[in-house]
């Protein structure tokens, strides 16, 4: 992709800095680039690679859940060789390996795949273009963000290969478990997890400062706040969430790091005893403190995962229904409301900690409140479809599927937000099904839609429609076959953390329900099906770089927003002349207009 970028931009070559133009070398152009588009692509490629890697971890775990104690085909021998016999004796996944894959699947998917793809890649590439800016406000800071992110990823991946393996206390890393999981090793997986997290958090903070400054300061002439595309609003609120929610986790991470390395007791209570006897620490710490600080980030993080996808979906729906988004202002106010409320719902993850009924009541009230703006957004997007002459291309199919999938994910969250029902459903497969509906067929579908939609702007070529449709229908079917049975398993009481899929639970016939275990097998088969249907996407993604249908104009989707009024791909500095904005972002099918779309930059 990178080579095409340089190739075609040369043909457009009308940039503002021709007078001091010099040809940068490979490293300066692709590794140490300060161009937001190159950085966006760097984020995109790395996060897609991490997405694939996180998916592989899950596949190995799914095998173990369906066929506990059986050697993993193909990868089992590799695991034994690379990670040691303790982890995968004879190619069979051991409990420690399952735990570390589980923790790292969550960590990688959230912090190294989805957020960098949604915020780092799409945010970087599209936001400055949509507001008519030549670049981000702080280009070098932007480069530093990516490098810190990459370094964080390397530390996370490296942690698999140290003695004791990667972190194995869940992506939530609850203390005291996280501190005591690897008592033998001085530098253990958890320590590297924390170091990696501090790097990733720093990267996100720099990114957030950069995004907000860019959106406040670098909007083109005429680009007033209410003329911003909804995608930019979503990125703006996301950046604020990252900016203000991440630092407490950084603090918590530093404290847990001190617990691991210096022997402090921030999160270790007095009188802590393990199978090895009394833990030799001062005690006096509070495990609850970790959970508060962790969820203070991790709940807003949910909105960091979902809001950019909502932004992408809004752009694509407006473009493909050929009519304005219904209720643009309500969408903006709703996304701002989500931004505020996201900070006061975190303890609904902690009903089981016994923090008290009064606190639980407070948080269940705020949790119900935050569902209101979420429903407003979803409803506005649904109503936007009404009466449109919809173009069913691949990005639109993914965007349309996002709506019901996110709807299911959101609505099934309500029983978890209510104290009484959560006490029963907590830590069961129901929870997994709920948040995966939000993030996997929800956010990831939104992001796939974005890849198909902006691909022609980035490469100058369309992705193949047929492969796109195969990818879409296969993913839609198998995503649902994977996650909907988990609701049943969860409601029937299956705990989410059993490394053998519950086999030990059922073997003595007590409470035996073979049906639940059979679901494990069918879910695993569905997961393999999902993997199969990602192959057309991977092939399409690389093949179309040089073989896709060439775009005939800079605006192949006939869209209104500014990124389509740049050359394809946009040169360094983005715009050939200073962009000026005359109208709102979604002027489709304006009565009396010559065409069914009126770009933001069109005067009159």
């Amino acid at each position: 992709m990178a080579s095409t970028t340089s190739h075609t931009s040369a043909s457009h070559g009308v940039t503002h800095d021709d007078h001091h133009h010099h040809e940068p070398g490979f490293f300066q152009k692709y590794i140490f680039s300060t161009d937001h588009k190159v950085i966006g692509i760097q984020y995109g490629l790395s996060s897609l690679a991490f997405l694939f890697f996180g998916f592989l971890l899950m596949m190995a775990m799914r095998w173990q859940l369906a066929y506990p104690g059986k050697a993993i085909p193909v990868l089992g021998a590799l695991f034994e060789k690379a990670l040691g016999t303790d982890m995968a004796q004879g190619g069979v996944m051991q409990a420690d390996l399952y735990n570390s894959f589980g923790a790292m699947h969550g960590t990688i998917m959230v912090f190294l795949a989805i957020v960098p793809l949604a915020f780092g890649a799409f945010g970087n590439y599209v936001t400055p273009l949509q507001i008519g800016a030549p670049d981000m406000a702080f280009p070098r800071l932007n480069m530093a963000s990516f490098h810190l992110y990459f370094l964080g990823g390397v530390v996370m991946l490296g942690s698999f290969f140290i003695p004791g393996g990667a972190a194995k206390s869940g992506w939530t890393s609850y203390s005291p478990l996280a501190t005591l999981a690897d008592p033998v090793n001085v530098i253990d997986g958890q320590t590297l997890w924390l170091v990696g997290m501090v790097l990733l958090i720093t990267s996100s903070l720099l990114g957030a400062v950069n995004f907000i400054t860019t959106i406040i300061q670098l909007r083109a002439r005429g680009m007033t706040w209410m003329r911003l595309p909804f995608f930019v609003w979503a990125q703006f609120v996301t950046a604020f969430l990252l900016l203000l929610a991440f630092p407490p986790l950084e603090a918590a991470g530093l404290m847990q790091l001190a617990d691991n390395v210096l022997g402090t007791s921030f999160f270790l209570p007095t009188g802590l005893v393990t199978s090895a006897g009394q833990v030799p620490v001062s005690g006096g710490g509070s495990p609850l403190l970790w959970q508060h600080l962790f969820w203070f980030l991790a709940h807003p993080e949910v909105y960091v995962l979902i809001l950019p996808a909502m932004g992408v979906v809004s752009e694509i729906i407006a473009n493909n229904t050929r009519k304005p988004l219904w209720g643009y202002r309500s969408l903006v106010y709703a996304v701002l409301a989500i931004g505020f409320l996201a900070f006061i719902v975190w303890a609904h993850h902690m009903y089981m900690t016994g923090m008290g009924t009064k606190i639980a009541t407070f948080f269940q009230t705020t949790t119900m409140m935050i569902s209101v703006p979420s429903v407003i957004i979803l409803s506005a997007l649904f109503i936007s479809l009404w009466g449109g002459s919809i173009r069913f291309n691949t990005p639109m199919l993914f965007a349309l599927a996002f709506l019901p999938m996110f709807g299911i994910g959101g609505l099934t969250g309500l029983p978890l937000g209510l104290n009484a029902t959560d006490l029963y459903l907590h830590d069961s497969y129901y929870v997994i099904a709920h948040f995966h509906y939000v993030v996997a067929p929800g956010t990831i579908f939104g992001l796939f839609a974005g890849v198909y939609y902006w691909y022609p702007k980035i490469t100058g070529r369309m992705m193949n429609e047929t492969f796109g449709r195969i990818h879409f229908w296969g993913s839609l079917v198998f995503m649902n076959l994977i996650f909907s049975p988990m609701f049943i398993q969860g409601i029937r009481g299956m705990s989410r953390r059993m490394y053998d899929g519950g086999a030990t639970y059922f073997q003595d016939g007590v409470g035996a329900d073979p049906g639940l275990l059979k679901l494990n097998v069918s879910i695993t088969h569905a997961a393999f099906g999902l993997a199969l249907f990602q192959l057309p996407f991977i092939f399409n993604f690389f093949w179309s770089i040089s073989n896709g249908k060439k775009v005939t104009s800079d605006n192949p989707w006939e869209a209104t927003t500014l990124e389509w009024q740049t050359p394809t791909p946009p040169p360094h500095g983005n715009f050939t002349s200073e962009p000026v904005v005359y109208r709102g972002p979604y002027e489709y099918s304006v009565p009396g207009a010559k065409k069914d779309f009126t770009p933001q930059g069109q005067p009159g």
Partner: protein
Amino acid sequence: MDIPYTVKPRPDTGLYNAKVGIWLFLASEVMLFGAFFSAYILLRVTAQHGFWPDVADGWPHGLLNIPIGTFNTAVLISSSVTVVMAWMALKENNFPKFRNFMIFTVACALGFLGIKTFEYKEKFSHYVIRTTDGKVVTGHLDVDGKSPLFWNLDTVKSKNIEKLKVEVDIPNKYRFPVGMHVPEDIHKAHAEGRHHDEKEIEVSQIESLKAFIPSTHPFFAIYFTMTFLHGLHVLGGALVLAYFTFIGTDLWKTNPEQFTNRIEVGGLFWHFVDLVWIFLFPVVYLL
């Protein structure tokens, strides 16, 4: 390609980019230190009775050197004043004056860090000792006229010491939380100007011996973590200010407005570092 508003403010926001950026960054810093202060509160209110020896609320009091802390606060506040004076000097187009004020600012930063280092060392060589008869004392060790750091009971035993000389502290009144009775003999000792008692403790009688290091008590854990993190901020700020004072001065000749902006942004960060200390000092030293 030039990015707009790097030097001149954008008309509708009235701000240049870096000023927006630094305020946002400071917002995230508020959340970072806010989390540590919250952690402090939670750890303190959940401390159990007797968790620190002889103190009802289980939380150590009066172990830090208040006069030195006060002096350090004054040092940091002075530097916060001079950093503004330096910026004003640039506005007056008076570079030598800027440089003098900035040198004073950076010197204050280094002074602060030096004093903090001294305080740290004083804590690392300070011990809490519990003997088998249930008594607890705090104080510095005296091993051949030296005051060792980071020892524990194993270190003492490995040195084949039989009797340990300890300069036992006579607690100051801050060791006793409000409402707690201060014993008469302590008043008397202070009236006589005595602050230490030389004592010899049989090593075989010692049950535990711990230095004032993070793992000894959550108070030390949070004290060292917060002050260390704050110290890193002081160091970072001082490096940036020193860079503009000594090395990066060419920008003043080529683009004085941008240079002045950078000093303003650096100064904003410096004020924040100062502000954190103004919260930190009463919380860990006085309360």
